[in-house]
């Protein structure tokens, strides 16, 4: 059964303090791994798609990386506006349309 596990569940950082969020996944074959940002009361906002091990994507202070078993979302010198829940999701190669989400990491950046 496909599974996505994210850690830590919650993370508090000082502004400017860099860190990484982890997403471990189990799928029969990976079609794609997705990172989303979710603000309270809002829907998931798409950030990145990663398709193969070794791939990296960057956007402002965020960088996503992918291995065969996990993905990391690195946050460099975060600002308070980066506070949100970050969701990881995977799509299986067996042509399923759905994506399977992890529970997310709640990130809080203190000014």
């Amino acid at each position, binding site marked *: 059964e496909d599974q996505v596990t994210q850690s830590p569940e919650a993370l508090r950082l000082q502004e400017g303090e860099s860190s990484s969020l982890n997403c471990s996944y189990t799928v029969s074959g990976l*079609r*794609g791994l*997705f990172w*989303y940002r979710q603000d309270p*009361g*809002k*829907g*998931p*906002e*798409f950030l990145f*798609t990663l398709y193969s091990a070794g791939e990296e994507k960057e956007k402002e202070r965020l960088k996503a990386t992918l291995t065969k078993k996990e993905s990391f979302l690195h946050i460099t010198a975060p600002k308070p506006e980066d506070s949100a829940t970050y*969701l990881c*999701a995977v*799509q299986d190669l067996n*042509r*399923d*349309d*759905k*994506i*399977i*989400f*992890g*529970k*997310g990491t709640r990130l809080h950046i203190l000014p």
Partner: protein
Amino acid sequence: EPEVTQTPSHQVTQMGQEVILRCVPISNHLYFYWYRQILGQKVEFLVSFYNNEISEKSEIFDDQFSVERPDGSNFTLKIRSTKLEDSAMYFCASNKGWNQPQHFGDGTRLSIL
């Protein structure tokens, strides 16, 4: 930037009543989805829809649920006889192709009394 829009933002309904949640996907997208998120839990897949038919559904999507694309722009989720456990945020999503990122609306919060 085009976005997925959902109405209403909050729906309160008595148990046993029918409810229809509405979505307008991004205009050039071909695949449409419904997900739900019970408070404090994961976002869960309900159903995907392509070419005017359901392409996949989860165990949650039982006979009480149905989806429809009544015209060229709307995509609806109907729950025939609501239960207390249907209380959740319901998200609509769409994408251009099955291997493209899905884009989500801001959801409808469904409260069953």
